């Protein structure tokens, strides 16, 4: 359906009346789920087609700017804009680290014409969740400041290595912004630094946001409802195509060996060193030792505070590989009535529905398996079962 819309020029209301409900059909058990899933899947396939052969910015530094101005009290999203956004952001933080294990996230709130740091750039979701939990009790007040927020993000992001992708996602409920100086300069500055600013508007389109996103290469969307907001946030989960001026380099990384609990002497880890001054923290045996300076960390990924080496474990890198080597789309064929085929992977028989064929191994899969293979597994079972394909 989506492609039809895009092909038609002119306005949507000028086009023919769309019977959207006719696209939804019940399956044999009277369930609508499969049909809805198919529509979702089609859009996903479309996305995959577009994404091909684009270099991605895999190491991401993402600032989320959250509007905490009075406009966020409005309850056009239930129960209120701010509660709805906080709830979705909580989910976003988890999924972000799942999709981008070697990336970093930070959160800024803006209210009373100021920008305020909620959590620092880090690879640890817990810190952001703590920060978000604290905002929950606050009453949004005043006006937001786009310029202050962008400047605050830029101040940190400009020192990030040139090969990483620098992104700012602004969730804006207000229709105004209160800035100390000319925002156009800030926008130019952001462009120079390679900051990709995207805005998710909760109210209506604002020219300054449109301009900001167009110049810095980000996206600008206005939310229709909660589900749409979730979808828009999910768009920022996948690594974006790399900007042209992004620098490529070899990054030195450490792969620490986990020390056994018996063989190590008890010590404080670097991550809890500061907390230890104020509260009681367990001294632990075992942990990850930086291969360069032997300082200890209790979890990965981390950046060594002593020697600055990025510490990761191999599965962290491997988790990102499916973005880089995506599985090709399978070819769709519609089965005629009476033509029964067997799905290669789940062994179920399919009749009168679509079959999906892998172009490489020529094996056929049913719709459910096709969705699972492309969305979760990222590996074609047919190819994996043939030695010459490996």
């Amino acid at each position, binding site marked *: 359906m989506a492609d039809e819309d895009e092909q038609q020029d002119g306005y949507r209301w000028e086009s023919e009346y769309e019977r959207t409900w006719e696209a939804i059909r019940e399956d044999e058990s009277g369930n609508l789920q499969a049909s809805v899933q198919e529509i979702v899947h089609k859009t996903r396939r479309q996305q995959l087609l577009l994404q091909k052969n684009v270099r991605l910015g895999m190491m991401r530094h993402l600032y989320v700017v959250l509007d905490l101005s009075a406009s966020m009290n409005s309850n056009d999203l239930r129960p209120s804009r701010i509660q709805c956004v906080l709830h979705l952001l909580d989910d976003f933080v988890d999924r972000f680290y799942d999709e981008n294990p070697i990336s970093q996230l930070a959160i800024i709130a803006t209210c009373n014409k100021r920008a305020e740091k909620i959590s620092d750039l880090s690879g640890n979701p817990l810190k952001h969740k703590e920060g978000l939990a604290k905002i929950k009790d606050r009453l949004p007040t005043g006006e937001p400041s786009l310029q202050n927020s962008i400047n605050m993000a830029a101040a940190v992001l400009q020192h990030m290595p040139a090969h990483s992708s620098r992104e700012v996602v602004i969730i804006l409920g207000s229709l105004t912004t209160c800035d100390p100086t000319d925002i156009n300069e800030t926008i130019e500055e952001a462009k120079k630094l390679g900051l990709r600013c995207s805005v998710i508007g909760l109210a209506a389109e604002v020219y300054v946001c449109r301009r900001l996103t167009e110049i810095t290469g980000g996206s600008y969307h206005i939310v229709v409802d909660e589900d749409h907001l979730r979808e828009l946030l999910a768009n920022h989960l996948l690594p974006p195509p790399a900007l042209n001026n992004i620098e490529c380099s070899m990054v030195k990384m450490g792969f620490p060996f986990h020390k056994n609990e018996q063989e190590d002497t008890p010590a404080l880890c670097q991550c809890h060193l500061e907390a230890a001054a104020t509260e009681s923290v367990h001294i632990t045996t075992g942990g990850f030792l930086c291969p360069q300076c032997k300082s200890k960390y209790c979890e990965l990924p981390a950046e060594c505070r002593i020697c600055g080496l990025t510490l990761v474990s191999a599965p962290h*890198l491997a988790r990102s*590989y499916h973005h880089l080597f995506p599985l090709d789309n399978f070819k769709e064929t519609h089965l005629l009535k009476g033509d029964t085929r067997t799905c290669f992977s789940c062994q179920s028989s399919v009749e009168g529905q679509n079959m999906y064929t892998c172009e490489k191994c020529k094996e056929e899969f049913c719709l459910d398996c096709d969705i699972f293979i492309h969305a979760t597994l990222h590996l074609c079972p047919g190819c994996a079962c043939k030695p010459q394909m490996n």
Partner: protein
Amino acid sequence: MGSQIQPEEEDEVSELLAVVLDTSFNSALIKEKNVGQLLDAVVIFSNAHLMNSSKNTLAVVACHPHTAKMIYPVKKDSIQNIRPPDAQMEILAHATQVIRDGIKEVVTSWQGVYSIEPLLTGGMALALCYIAKRMANTVGKLNGRILVLSSSGESAHQYLNFMNVFFAAQRKAIVVDSCVIQNDCGLLQQGADITGGNYLKAPSIAGLLEYLLWVFLPPKSLRAKLVLPKPDVVDYRTACFCHRNLIEVGYVCSVCLSIFCQFAPICSTCQTHFKFIGFKQSMVKKKEQKSLQAPLL
């Protein structure tokens, strides 16, 4: 065991166990004529799982160097009229026969050498798809888990496939257990760690069945209450793409995340455009000229 879980919980949850069996037995196993014993252990273990509850279901995938195939449940029920010996349950006799026939068919269809790695990842991918489909179609809760039984040791060539399988399993909350015989497999160990399963190296074939029943038969919910062998520390160090050396400090290409043990001006994994930018900028800037001059001359 049944007394440990709430009765209503037991009613709702059904367990689907997928056994991924590596049938390319290593030469030591064949020489000592232990293969029969191993297969018996697998069949008895599968039957024990089916016997635990009437809701339990089973899938068996055989992995060979030339193919991976789901051998149980089979599509065409050509062998329906199996008469159970004595008082054996029909389903058990059926499973036993089908698994035996399936293994025989897979093993005899291969004439090549056994030194080639079996397609474990293919088998696991099949098992995952099957479990995912069953999970989607089951009303109520279905716990899926996979048990990999392998004797062929490390299979580093399928690294990416292994990782994809483990992450997919982790997302679907499917536990991947591994029982290896004689040869350790670091990747399966990592997989067990990622998905929250058990990893065990069975010290002897004679005791294999006992190990299987002890460590791998109980479902995830019961395992916390059992005394199981302590997991080893998982070695997450990685091998570089260029020499396959295990490294502690390495260089990672910022575009394709390939890992190298030493700085190189050209990334061997991703294509041309990286080479030039890397050549122009990082070479001059980073004062790596000394190491770079050698391959250029």
